[in-house]
């Protein structure tokens, strides 16, 4: 594994708009859902990057753009310095060997008509690896063993497995090609809490053993904290804060991050009181997002400037990047998130 | 809502023009009787034939003929003249429509009156002997060709030729208009109505039973029961009302297709309806009538689809106008 300082992936000004069209015979576009609207960040080799945000904020779209399940409206994704949008044919296929994904729903991510043996063998078949039947089967069973499945269940169908087992199947499929980058899109949100930890531990284990770079997407900040080195927070298609784990949880700067943290039921050893910062109103429609700072309609600290000028994502100390004209102060954090600040200390 | 209806109507017009164009081209390209030859006398000279061709506009290119046809259709609902009798297609169809409508609506009444109760009872008494025998009978009727059923009924019961004559069941060819003699009209249609309705009654009973069973398993039915409503109220008010919605789609289309001519039934019972007209025209290669009846039937079908969509939206609030 390369240890060069160059990030594994560089994301620059990534935009994805989904057109909204209407018409029976001739369709015309009448608008667009701005799912991802200008996002830039790096993924460093070997790290685990968390991406969090509410449902619909664009995190899953971002993940799909990273592995080219979607093509961006504009912007670039560089893998080891090379634009993945340029990949075609065999090159594109090869790209999929480097980047793999684990999906959110273990029920729908496995084809109910195929045995798990053939599901896990798919990557080999597609990429023409281990063509010999016996060898392929052995490889698949190794993988099953490695993710904690009984290799003898090779011929069973997905419906015969529990949710956690299914997610392990998904993991086995994703690591079969030994990718450089593994993107886990809310891998445990559909699972029972008791099972979640097992799957998370499996992922951490694999990351350590295989030296994987992991992008971990979640809407649950506590899960991310358990897994990640750095965390990116998204709101309505924009990156609002990007910080190392400790910085984010210790001293969130963006009011939105603050609100998210304040909603997490963190056990508070200090027993002190805290003032919950509740988000008012609904998330605005991504088809028609608010001007300038998109959070200004719901932000407790919003001022006139926020509605007219978009704040850049910039260094706010402690390696934290945040896009906010009026970031949270230490006092505010202390008042609202006493546990957070104390944990960081 | 208005926008939705207007858009559906516009699309309906497009569909209709497509149907007309396809039939036009198709029947133009395939061999049929040359109407000019038909009109000309025996051993007629090519000169006469070409004159008649010119009279009928047959010497013009297809697209011109199509355009003329369309123009007359839109401006005057003029569908041309029969190659055979020279009568206007519009008047021929107007003349035949009452018989077809009589046949259709009588049959619809019967199949709903039979199919719906049977469907409901079968669903409620699911797996009972009653249910099983009703559904078994239904499947037999679904499988029986309507014309054969017609012959069989005529063979057994017709007042004129039947083995077990039933005096008021007049046989084939006994149709008279409603205005001529309401009683005779009614009696002469009894057999065709029942024969035509048999298959549909069976289908509707099966459909309704299936969808009622699904509906009765829904949560809101359980809620209604829990509220202590009497069972028949639960079934009729809550169950049947929503279970019947899918039938509306089928019903609209069925009526439309039959209004366009119940060819088989009209043939067996010799009822002078649109279907018979079309059938005779096809055997004679009388293109204007073929085209006219297909256009009429297509209009019914397209309109029915639109009406059904709109009705569906009323009946099922989940459907949105998009």
């Amino acid at each position, binding site marked *: 594994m390369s240890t060069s300082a160059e990030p594994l992936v560089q994301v620059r000004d990534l935009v994805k708009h989904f057109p909204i069209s209407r018409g029976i015979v001739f369709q015309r576009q009448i608008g667009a859902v701005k799912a991802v609207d200008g996002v830039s960040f790096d993924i460093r080799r070997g790290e685990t990057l968390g991406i969090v945000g509410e449902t619909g904020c664009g995190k899953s779209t971002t993940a799909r753009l990273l592995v080219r399940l979607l093509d961006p409206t504009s912007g670039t994704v560089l893998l080891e310095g090379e634009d993945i949008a340029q990949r075609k044919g065999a090159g594109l296929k090869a790209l999929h060997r480097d980047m793999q994904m684990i999906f959110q729903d273990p029920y729908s991510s496995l084809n109910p008509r195929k045995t798990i043996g053939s599901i896990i063998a798919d990557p080999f078949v597609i990429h023409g690896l281990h063509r010999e039947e016996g060898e392929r089967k052995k490889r698949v069973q190794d993988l099953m063993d490695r993710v904690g499945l009984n290799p003898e269940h090779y011929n069973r169908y997905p419906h*015969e497995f529990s949710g956690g087992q299914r997610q392990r199947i998904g993991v086995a499929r994703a690591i079969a090609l030994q990718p450089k980058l593994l993107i886990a899109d809310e891998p445990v949100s559909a699972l029972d809490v008791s099972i979640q930890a097992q799957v998370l531990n499996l992922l951490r284990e694999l990351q350590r053993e295989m030296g994987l770079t992991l992008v971990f997407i979640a809407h649950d900040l506590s899960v991310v904290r358990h897994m990640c080195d750095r965390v990116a927070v998204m709101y309505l298609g924009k990156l609002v804060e990007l910080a190392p784990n400790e910085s984010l949880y210790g001293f969130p700067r963006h009011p939105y991050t603050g609100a998210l943290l304040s909603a997490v039921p963190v056990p508070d050893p200090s027993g002190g009181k805290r003032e919950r910062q509740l988000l008012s109103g609904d998330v605005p429609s991504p088809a028609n997002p608010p001007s300038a700072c998109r959070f200004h309609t719901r932000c407790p600290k919003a001022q006139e400037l926020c509605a007219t000028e978009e704040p850049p994502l910039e260094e706010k100390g402690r390696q934290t990047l945040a896009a906010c004209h009026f970031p949270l102060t230490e006092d505010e954090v202390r008042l609202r998130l006493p546990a957070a600040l104390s944990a960081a200390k | 809502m208005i926008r939705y209806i207007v858009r559906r109507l516009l699309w309906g017009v497009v569909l209709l023009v497509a149907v007309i164009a396809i039939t036009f081209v*198709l029947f133009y390209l395939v061999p049929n009787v040359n109407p000019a030859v038909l009109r000309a006398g025996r051993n007629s000279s090519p000169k006469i034939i070409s004159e008649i061709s010119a009279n009928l506009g047959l010497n013009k290119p297809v697209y011109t003929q199509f355009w003329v046809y369309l123009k007359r259709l839109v401006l005057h609902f003029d569908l041309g003249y029969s190659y055979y009798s020279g009568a206007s297609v519009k008047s021929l169809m107007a003349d035949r429509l009452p018989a077809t409508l009589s046949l259709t609506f009588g049959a619809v009444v019967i199949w709903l009156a039979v199919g719906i109760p049977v469907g409901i009872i079968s669903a409620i008494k699911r797996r009972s002997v009653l249910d099983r025998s009703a559904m078994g009978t239904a499947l037999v009727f679904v499988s029986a060709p309507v014309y054969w059923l017609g*012959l069989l009924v005529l063979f057994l019961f017709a007042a004129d*030729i039947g083995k077990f004559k039933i005096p008021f069941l007049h046989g084939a060819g006994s149709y008279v208009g409603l205005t001529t003699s309401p009683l005779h009209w009614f009696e002469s249609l009894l057999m065709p109505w029942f024969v035509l309705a048999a298959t549909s009654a069976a289908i509707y009973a099966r459909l309704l039973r299936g969808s009622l069973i699904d509906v009765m398993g829904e949560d809101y039915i359980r809620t209604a029961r829990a509220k202590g409503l009497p069972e028949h109220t639960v079934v009729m008010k809550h169950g049947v009302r929503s279970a019947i919605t899918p039938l509306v789609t089928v019903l609209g289309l069925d009526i439309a*297709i039959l209004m366009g001519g119940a060819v*088989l039934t009209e043939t067996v019972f010799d009822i002078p309806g649109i279907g018979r007209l079309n*059938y005779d025209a096809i055997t004679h290669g009388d293109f204007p009538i*073929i085209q006219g009846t297909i256009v009429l039937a297509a209009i019914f079908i397209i309109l029915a689809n639109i009406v059904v969509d709109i009705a569906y939206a009323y009946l099922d609030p989940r459907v949105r106008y998009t």
Partner: protein
Amino acid sequence: MSVGASELLVEGEPSVEAIELVPGEVTARSPWQLFWRRFRADRVAMASGIFIVLLILVAIFAPLIVSILGLPGPSVQNPNLTDAFGTPIGPTGAHPFGVDPLGEDVMSRVIYGARVSLEVGIIGTALSTFLGVSLGLIAGFYRGWADTGLSRLADVVLSFPILLFGLGIGAACAVNGCLGGAIQPGVQTIIAIIVIAGWTYIYRITRGQVLSLREKEFVEAARSLGASNRRIMFREILPNLVAPIIVYSSLLIPVNILFEAALSYLGVGVKPPTASWGQMIADATSNFQTVWWYMLFPGVALLLTVLAFNLVGDGLQDALNPKADR
């Protein structure tokens, strides 16, 4: 249930969302094994299935069976079997189903008639299913213009009064065939009509299912593995369509058999000397009150065949979707 009234010859809109193989007991049984077990338990459907198998054998070995029964061939004319007015004789020991006005043996013709019905029912259904599934896959998978175009085309086809249209085509192709002789009159023409009219039902069902399947994560998973579109369509999506397609096409078979019989009845389908049940019934209409056997037996054969296919179709549906027990 999707079989339309025989007069209508049009299906109702598919009422089934998705027929899924529902997990049964947790054993290492494939969905097909589960399905087979359930189907086998359905005695009516099994009996119907056996009837159909026998019928297919009868159709294939018609010449053999006719000679074993000691019957004359289906087109052997014998004027001695009609009286001075041309009225044929009724059922006798030598001619169990009687003879027709040409002195041809009705039983022999009923046996040979199974060939036409099955050919049209099975080949017509197979072809329209193939076309419907292929186009449905393309439209549902690629969406966009392909979808718009194909769906609009289906709308147009569904706006036709199919029976009237079939009558027209049947008459038009009667002598020289259609498309410069590429489609021969008779069975081929009927199959062509069935395919032209019938693909839309399967198309709509397939398209709908593909539209929802393509949003499933296993499709994304395959794509993220680098699978090609073709592989996704055929290896990921298609296997999930097999069950509903089997159910719908099994219910289309009886509809198509009735359609052939109706066209032949109306005189534009299969024509003599080829024996077809519908054509025999048509032929019998002019004298059915005296020559009742000529009307009765082909009709019964048709009824039983269609009924058997309907029962098997119902059985398949129940076996594949035990929730919808009917």
